[in-house]
């Protein structure tokens, strides 16, 4: 152990104080990102467990009333109505959601379905988060990998060869038999590997802390670490190239910062701009307008408009008590009508999103940072795509639910126990967009290898006499 300790000390003593400060700052940021992610995951799990319990209790009460009613015991006509059967839908934090939790609050993760829901308003909620907090987001591991790691690599590696030249050591090194490619490679890896190690340790620790690992999470962890490695390797290639090409430190500093801006800022911005212009996302505002006119039309066709509206307010319904059936029927008819109109639009939107993502998978290689972002989000289980998948699964379930309660509601009767049990519960099934991940791995790895090779070839020129 002592000798290992000595080796570690010897290894780190080879770094300058500045380099150690960069490592330390990086380690602190990484630890903070993972710790805040773990805290978020814990909070989110607790937050979802409360309504889950409440809904479970009200479901139990609903079923008890139905059982009583089926066994001939008289119960209030307001109880165990099909429209009132609650189903809790929730999207648990992603398997590695602790690494990419920023702005996850933007997307709804829970909802309670009943007959008064419609497809436009399944996730109607109070949007209480401060927009300022949402905009600034926060620091998660994805951001550290995507933005901070490249900057740290640029700072640590920008002038390995330029500084040798400027300090007047390069010629002596060449005469001594050193190859610039060796110097470049060894220095670059010496300065870059600690960053990779910090990220890997943080990822593994951050996964194991959450509990025992199942096979799917383990697989995701491997893909996650692999994605970090590929992106890291890409940046090692970029830094090597900058270091090989630039003759002076100032030039190297300018070029490395330019490369950082190009890859982390400019390309994703252009990519985003081009993508936003070529793909038209379904804006919620637009959806709202359609749902609104559908609602107006639906309310125009139901007999008792006031009832349909009042039926949503269960508090009042419960007070009214005995005279039940038509309230439910009117509300059901109104919502069915809204679903018909909005459902098609949502289907078209979901299909469009799917197509857009296929397009993104194909072109994402033009912006390695965008590809890395999408892959890290996908592998961790968070972001827009997962939210779309959740919406899709909930809507599919909701259609099944709405259809099952329909006949009984229209006939103004209760469901049978068997019919009610057939509705079942909702459970979110995790998915992984393999195409996104694979195209990132393939394209960015090729970029990384090509950049490294160009850098190595370029350094060979340094061995030749200058013209």
């Amino acid at each position, binding site marked *: 152990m002592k000798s290992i300790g000595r080796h570690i000390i010897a290894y780190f003593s080879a770094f300058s104080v500045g380099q150690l400060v960069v490592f330390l700052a990086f380690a602190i940021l990484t630890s903070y990102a993972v710790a805040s992610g773990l805290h978020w995951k814990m909070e989110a799990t607790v937050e979802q467990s409360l309504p889950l319990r409440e809904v479970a209790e009200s479901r139990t009460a609903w079923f008890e009333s139905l059982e009583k009613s089926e066994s001939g015991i008289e119960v209030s006509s307001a109880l165990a109505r099909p429209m009132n059967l609650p189903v809790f839908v929730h999207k648990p934090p992603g398997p590695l959601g602790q690494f990419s939790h920023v702005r996850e609050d933007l997307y709804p993760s829970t909802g309670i379905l009943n007959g008064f829901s419609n497809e436009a308003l399944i996730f109607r909620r109070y949007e209480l988060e401060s927009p300022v907090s949402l905009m600034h987001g926060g620091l998660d591991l994805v951001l550290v990998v995507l933005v901070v790691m490249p900057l740290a690599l640029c700072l640590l590696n920008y002038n390995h060869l330029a500084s040798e030249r400027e300090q007047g050591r390069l010629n002596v090194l060449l005469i001594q038999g050193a190859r610039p490619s060796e110097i470049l490679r060894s220095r670059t890896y010496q300065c870059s590997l600690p960053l990779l190690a910090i990220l890997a340790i943080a990822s593994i620790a951050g996964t194991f802390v959450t509990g025992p690992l199942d096979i799917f999470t383990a697989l995701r962890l491997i893909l996650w670490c692999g994605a970090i490695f590929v992106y890291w390797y890409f940046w090692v290639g970029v830094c090597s190239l900058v270091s090989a090409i630039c003759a002076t430190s100032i030039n190297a500093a300018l070029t490395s910062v330019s490369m950082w801006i190009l890859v982390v800022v400019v390309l994703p911005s252009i990519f985003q701009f081009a993508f936003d212009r070529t793909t038209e996302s379904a804006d919620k505002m637009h959806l709202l307008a359609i749902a609104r006119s559908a609602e107006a039309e639906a309310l125009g066709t139901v007999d008792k408009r006031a009832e349909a509206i009042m039926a949503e307010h269960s508090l009042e319904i419960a007070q009214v008590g005995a005279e039940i059936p038509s309230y439910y029927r009117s509300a059901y008819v109104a919502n069915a009508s809204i679903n018909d109109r909005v459902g098609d639009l949502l289907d078209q939107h979901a299909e469009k999103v799917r197509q857009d993502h296929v397009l993104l998978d194909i072109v994402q290689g033009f912006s390695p940072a965008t590809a890395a972002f999408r892959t890290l989000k996908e592998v961790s289980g968070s972001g827009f795509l997962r939210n779309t998948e959740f919406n899709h699964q909930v809507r599919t379930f909701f259609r099944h639910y709405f259809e099952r309660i329909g006949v009984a509601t229209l006939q103004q009767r209760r469901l049978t126990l068997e019919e009610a049990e057939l509705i079942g519960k909702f459970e979110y099934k995790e998915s992984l967009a393999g195409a996104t991940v694979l195209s990132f791995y393939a394209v960015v790895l090729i970029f990384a290898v090509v950049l490294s090779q160009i850098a190595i070839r370029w350094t060979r020129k340094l061995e030749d*006499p200058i013209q």
Partner: protein
Amino acid sequence: MIAIQAEDISKSFSNVQALTNISLQVEIGDVLGLLGPNGSGKTTLIHVFLGLVRPNTGHAYVLGIDPTLDPRGARKEISYVPEVVSLYPELTAIQNLQFFNSFNEDPCNSAELTQYLLEVGLDERFHRNRIKTLSKGMCQKVGLAIALAKDARVIFLDEPWTGLDPESAMELSDQIRKMRQRGRTILVATHDIFHLSGIAGHIGILRSGVLLSLVSSSGLSAKELEQLYLDQMRLED
């Protein structure tokens, strides 16, 4: 046998003619002193032999290898001490020596490296001091130790006496003499006539990239050498 040879070498940088038709030969075991004022082309000529600069015309050979065509091959036979020896300031003297020596095909062990440092006159108590705490002369000695430890057959020294105190300068001259005795071929570029006179077998005088004369220095005192140098300079004026 010829160790260093230049055949009609010319080199220009932009509009500046650095070397003009230089031809010379240095036999194995000889010491050639290149004398010349600042900007006369001494360092450029050394860089051509080191394979760092490609001449516009002509050829250079080090032990028969053209460093322009085979720089790595030529450099295996060469040691070099630049005018200003730059080392890693955060590392100690011995660590620097170890690092530079590690690129050799057959690196020395630490006892041997310590011996080289002692040989160039660096007291043992400075071996484990960081370079940034050492004087310029001490750094120059470490640079010389790096060249010695490579055990190359041809050694190029660029202005080796610059910045050294008299005692260190004398020690360096002794060192060069010892290397010559061991059969090493040495090319020393300098404008320090006094130190060169005692060690060089031949003297070449450069001015504005032209080799004005190449003479044997045997039997020449420092005074005579100085007179020769000044005559050459005046002649050209």
